[in-house]
């Protein structure tokens, strides 16, 4: 009886969020921008729903995968060109400084 009541209570509280609503709140949850009540309901739903737990994990793994994407390679000639421009800039700077000194 007692256990049944507890289950019903949990189902009622979690029932405030459907899977769909929970899935749409995942980024807000990960960003820490849910209100206290929303967070409790979110966590309650997560505690009861394996599918949403899987979905949350999938989103986390997606983020982790994106974070590990190899960096965009910068062509060597772009780099060389930039270093050349840097040296020109430095020369201009020092010639400006010396002309303002004299």
């Amino acid at each position, binding site marked *: 009886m007692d256990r049944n009541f507890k289950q019903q209570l949990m189902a009622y509280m979690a029932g405030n969020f459907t899977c769909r609503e929970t899935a749409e709140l995942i980024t807000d949850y990960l960003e820490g921008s849910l209100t206290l009540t929303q967070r409790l309901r979110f966590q309650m739903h997560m505690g009861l729903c394996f599918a*949403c737990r899987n979905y949350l994990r999938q989103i986390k793994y*997606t983020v982790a995968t994106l974070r*590990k994407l190899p960096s965009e390679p*910068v062509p060597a000639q772009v780099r060389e060109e930039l270093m050349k421009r840097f040296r020109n800039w430095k020369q201009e700077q020092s010639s400006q400084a010396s002309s303002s000194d004299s």
Partner: protein
Amino acid sequence: MSFCVWPWPPGLLFSLAVPTLQETIQLDETGLVQALQRGDEAVFSAVMDWYSGSLLRLAMAYVPSRAVAEEVVQETWMGVLEGIGRFEGRSSFKTWLFRILTNRAKTRGTRERRYEPFGLAGSDSEGDEGPSLEDSLFVAEGSGKGHWIDPPQGWEPDTPERALLSKECRMAIEEAINGLPDNQRQVITLRDVEGVSAEEVCNILTISETNQRVLLHRARTKVRRVLDPYVHGGKT
């Protein structure tokens, strides 16, 4: 100067070690800015190597071709040299750098007729409202309303490594990012690919926190969908 004789706690041994140039770039921003103002070539070269890949990736979210994006990156570094003397540290160096890039990229993008400012372009604001997941994924009526029809499966903990091992999957992820509306692409590139903080992203792209979250969520949802068959169907 340190007067510590006994290396305790053990971490102290490492903290006494001379930081590498790359650590300096990340940790000592004032020193970095001063070195650039002085015209320190080694520092410029290291900073450029550290950030150019990220800049290039973000530039590609604004302009139509890689060649133009490379030009934008060059222009950005020239902008850094022009402006470094006036840099006052009101924002972090990284935010400032990315702001220069976005400004130049927007100008170039408009000229190349691809980029239109936030909220104005039809394709940009397309799909920014309403749910990010289709109605067809969920039970429409009855007691199970709003629950998954086909519940998501578990992914293995080594998903990121496995996914990126496969060239096909890596290409699919890149294509998924390239196919996103521009504003979603900019947000996910900065937040998830480059690991920039939410606050910095809002400053760089001059968008609200709420908008940042909405765009990020939609973008992540789409990339997850592309990734799913590769990691779940055992394709990798």
